[in-house]
């Protein structure tokens, strides 16, 4: 069962151990999620040193707040991803004040084709994770370019809808519609995974 959608037993156990103060569980959490989180964070911040610091802050936050993790509000990876993204965006926002050119230096997206990741090691080294990535990447790749751009600017650059409208020269209402359509399609694609998992 994909861990993105339903908290796996292993995730529950990791969280329980961390909340109980077992530091080995934090090491195991790192082993399980470092590649996924690093792929996201490096996509946002672009710099390996910054990415490492963001990852350390994220895992440390997970350690300190393990007792507050609510399984009912989403999978462990969702929780970790939200924390990592938030900290990565904070990092680039503070950096942009002195390095405006970083806007252009951010790596361009290159989504994995639906066929899989090829020779690139699996982030979670599991077929389930590969399946999640395949479905998500395929769903993103199928989005119309303007919807994909809207989601990318919001998710990977942390721009608000108003900022996206200004940056793309599109009416605010159009940006809102694109964001809604894109994320709804992505949600529907994930629902397929849920069905498959049953």
């Amino acid at each position, binding site marked *: 069962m994909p861990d993105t959608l339903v908290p796996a037993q292993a995730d529950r156990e990791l969280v329980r151990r961390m909340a109980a*103060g077992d*530091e*080995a569980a*934090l090491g195991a959490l*790192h*082993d399980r999620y*470092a*590649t996924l*989180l*690093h*792929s*996201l964070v*490096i*996509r946002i911040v672009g710099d*390996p040193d910054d*990415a*490492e610091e963001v*990852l*350390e802050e994220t*895992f*440390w*936050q997970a*350690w*300190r*707040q*393990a*007792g507050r993790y609510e399984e009912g*509000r*989403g*999978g462990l*990876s*969702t929780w970790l*991803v939200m924390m990592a*993204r*938030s900290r990565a965006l904070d990092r680039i*926002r*503070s950096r*942009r*004040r002195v390095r*405006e050119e970083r806007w252009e230096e951010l790596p361009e*997206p290159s*989504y*994995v084709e639906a066929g899989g990741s090829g020779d690139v090691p*699996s982030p979670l080294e599991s077929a389930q994770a590969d399946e999640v*990535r395949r479905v*998500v990447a395929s769903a*993103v790749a199928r989005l119309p370019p303007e919807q994909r751009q809207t989601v990318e600017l919001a998710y990977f650059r*942390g721009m*608000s809808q*108003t900022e996206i409208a*200004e*940056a*793309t*020269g599109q009416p605010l209402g159009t940006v*809102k519609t694109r964001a*809604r359509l*894109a*994320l*709804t399609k*992505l949600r529907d694609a994930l629902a397929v995974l849920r069905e498959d998992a049953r």
Partner: protein
Amino acid sequence: MSPEMGHDDVRTALAAEALGALDGDEAEAVRAHLADCAECRSELEELREAAAALAHAAPPAPMDADRSARLRARLVARAAADRAGGAHDANPDAFSTGPALKAVAPPLSVPDDRGGVIPIARARERRGGMGGWLAAAAAVLLLIGVGAYAARMKGRYDALSERYASLDDERTRLVRSVARRDSTLASLSGAGVQVIELASTQRRAPNGRMFWDPATARWTFFAHDMPALKAGRDYQLWLITPAGPVSAGTFRPSPDGGAVVQATYPLPRDQLKAIAVTEEPAGGLPKPSGTPLIVGTYGTTE
């Protein structure tokens, strides 16, 4: 004050909320609605999960093996020290990224009777034996110490707030700058953008070029070698149509004679006959009064 939003409006905005892309007032209104609407909360959770799944779509980029091993060792060591030093966060808002924040607050202490510093716990132990005056003195010194510490923290908070406001302003400025640049690039590079050459009517050879994107009705005009203007005068850009000239704005060239004008004006292709620039009184006129300085005809470049 946040605007009121109905259930349907909030549902429409939930995707943006899940992406963290709502602007201030709207975000506030959505969150106020969520507090009382289980249906919207449930939908938001699904959309948040979908947004989080975008992390899986980022190109896989494993961390360098040495770097990853060092990070892991550091995390486990910090966690072991943390466990030895105390419990995890009991207060959700008291999250700390490490021991650094603990070090901010100095241990409360009072001077001992030899002028040194002893922990407050010891002072309490000795209070009964040394008499009421010592307890009173300790209390006064404690209040002074706490007051000084609070004042220092308040100063630090104010400085950080000011810094945050400054950074936020800078961020807003940069976002607008990027938006302007992207907008200009989009108006120059669109697939349907038309390019119209303008030739000089003067010996000094000022010239210009108009980029027209009929799809977005955006007009971007670049001028070169424009003669300097006298005070009280502007150049005015005109779109010449069968119904007459339409003003596309006024401009003053830079010292080197260059200028850029952008305008948005919908115009069917068959309505544009020419582009022209005239010199007019500052602020421009509804109709051109001067002789065109540069002119470009349209219709042969399509």
